[in-house]
């Protein structure tokens, strides 16, 4: 009884969504989510990530032709209350007329679980959330972080097949967000439940997701593991949305980018092209004395950020190049510096 049942595998087939007579909110999406996997839907607001989540939940019906399957069972026409999903919302959505324990036990009570069993399970859940002493508190006595823990305990108490999280950490402040993210990561791994997590925060997406689905304008821009998304973005949108990125447009000759500040070698992949849009991550660039590099620029600004120094270097390319250098580096505005990039860190993007 202690060990959680595994979640369901989920398949979206050709699911699109049109509201009223307006343009499509979601282009046809097909997506497979494995049993026990944590998939993060990542994108800016309005990209369709929440619509996708609500489709899986059963709160939004796909347009005609779309199908949603849980473990090969078609649930397209099942309302949310029959789908056995757990949901966690940004607004917590705790019932203010119930205590913490009543909130956590609500799903069990509704399913007709005997009162004694509800109590055992609620205590188990509260222990998991570290809220044993809060059982009889009312919701408005809790902090934001505690509320979201209660919401999480409530969502998993009835052992749902899928856990759906809609920006659960967005309402919390930065320090708390990081702490809860770590707890959430541990919880998802220990439960082995299928989880779908919506966020616009790429740090959260990378820390939590087995895979990330990057969405933009109602369709999927890229699906991949966090390091795939980060190192091999499929296009400019993904490169700029996930992490910081220097995007350089330049002509390509003999495997070198020709830039105002010099030449930069590109990995083998793209020798056939003439014009390139190249992407370089700020932490992939090293700052060296100018004589040690064939690519030179001038420091325009430096900003000490604690764990690193963010430097903006002009004259090297048509737009300033952003570099995250180790915090031990000391350069002054106006210094001429050489920049070094390993060829494998230059990623060419489709035009």
């Amino acid at each position, binding site marked *: 009884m202690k060990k959680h049942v595994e979640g369901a595998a989920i398949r979206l087939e050709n699911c699109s969504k049109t509201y009223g007579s307006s343009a499509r909110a979601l282009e046809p999406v097909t997506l497979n989510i494995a049993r026990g996997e944590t998939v993060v839907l990542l994108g800016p607001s309005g990209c369709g990530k929440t619509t996708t989540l609500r489709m899986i*939940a059963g*709160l939004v019906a796909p347009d005609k032709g779309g199908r949603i399957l849980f473990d090969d069972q078609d649930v397209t026409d099942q309302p949310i*209350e029959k789908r056995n999903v757990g*949901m966690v*919302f940004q607004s917590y*959505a*705790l019932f203010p007329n*119930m205590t913490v324990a009543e909130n956590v036990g*609500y*799903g069990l009570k509704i399913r007709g679980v005997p009162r004694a069993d509800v109590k055992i399970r609620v205590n188990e859940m509260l222990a998991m959330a570290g809220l044993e002493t809060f059982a009889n508190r009312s919701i408005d006595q809790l902090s934001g972080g505690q509320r979201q823990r209660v919401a999480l305990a409530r969502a998993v108490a009835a052992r749902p097949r899928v856990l759906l999280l809609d920006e659960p950490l967005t309402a919390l402040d930065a320090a708390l967000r990081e702490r809860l993210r770590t707890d959430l990561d541990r919880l998802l791994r220990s439960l082995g439940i299928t989880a779908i997590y919506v966020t616009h925060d790429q740090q959260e997406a990378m820390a939590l997701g087995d895979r990330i689905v990057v969405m933009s304008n109602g369709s999927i821009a890229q699906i991949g593991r966090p390091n795939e998304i980060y190192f091999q973005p499929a296009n400019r949108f993904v490169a700029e949305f996930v992490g910081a990125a220097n995007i350089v447009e330049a002509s390509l000759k003999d495997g070198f980018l020709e830039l105002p500040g010099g030449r930069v070698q590109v990995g083998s992949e793209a020798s056939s092209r003439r014009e390139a849009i190249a992407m370089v991550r700020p932490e992939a660039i090293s700052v060296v004395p100018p004589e040690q590099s064939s690519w030179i620029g001038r420091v325009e600004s430096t900003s000490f950020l604690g764990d690193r120094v963010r430097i903006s270097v002009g004259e090297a390319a048509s737009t300033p190049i952003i570099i995250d250098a180790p915090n031990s580096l000391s350069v002054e505005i106006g210094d001429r510096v050489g920049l070094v990039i390993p060829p494998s860190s230059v990623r060419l993007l489709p035009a």
Partner: protein
Amino acid sequence: MSRTSFVGLCLLPLLITVGLFFVLPVFQLLIVGANSPSGLSAYSAIVTEPRYRQSLIATLVLSVATTLVTVAVATIAGLFLQRNVFPGRAILISILTLPLAFPGVVVGFMIIILGGRQGIVGDLSRAMTGQKVIFAYSIAGLFLGYLYFSIPRVILTIMASIEKLDPQLEEAARSLGAGTWAVHRDVVLPALVPAFIASGAICFATAMGAFGTAFTLAARIDVLAMVIYTEFTLNANIAMAASLSVGLGLITWIALALARSLAGSSVAAAG
């Protein structure tokens, strides 16, 4: 000038105004009530004298019934109107609030037009069943009149509360397996309780003091406000009128104070 002395300076005229304008009349009312030839007997007469007691009970019953029915009808209509979008919805809502524009006298008048001796309901019922239905002068007419002017206010308060409900509360309940009925029982109605208390208290207070409708209907039942008027103007029994006024004020004040302590300051503002 220091802040404290400025506050003091403002406070003085305020206290004087409040004293003269708000406390003095009530205080005088209390004294007049106690000043009957037989001392405090005017107060005890409220419960000992059958006529006053019956009027008190009738007014209370009518007010409580009006409040309960109004809140129930307004909740159902409010939920329906807030949750569904259909053509003509805006017009329907503005029709529902029409009674806000009519005073009690006109409402009484309307009830007579509908259910009086020459009323259209009577005409219709005689044409259909041979039986002429007249309800204007009975407690039914009064009750209908009270509902007519209570429902709009309460509907609007409750609709405003429904609008403020977090829809994710309902979605959370549904995700946990709750069907429509359970969602309403466990989430929606509990969240509306403050609105019920606030608008119910105002509804009750208005019904307790309603005069124009009852007077126009010249109904067979005497509501408290009418008895006060009769004692004062026709019978010149000023002590009795005052003690009945104090009793009526006390009941209403307790209802409002209770509601305020349960539902917060929204009660007063909704009035």
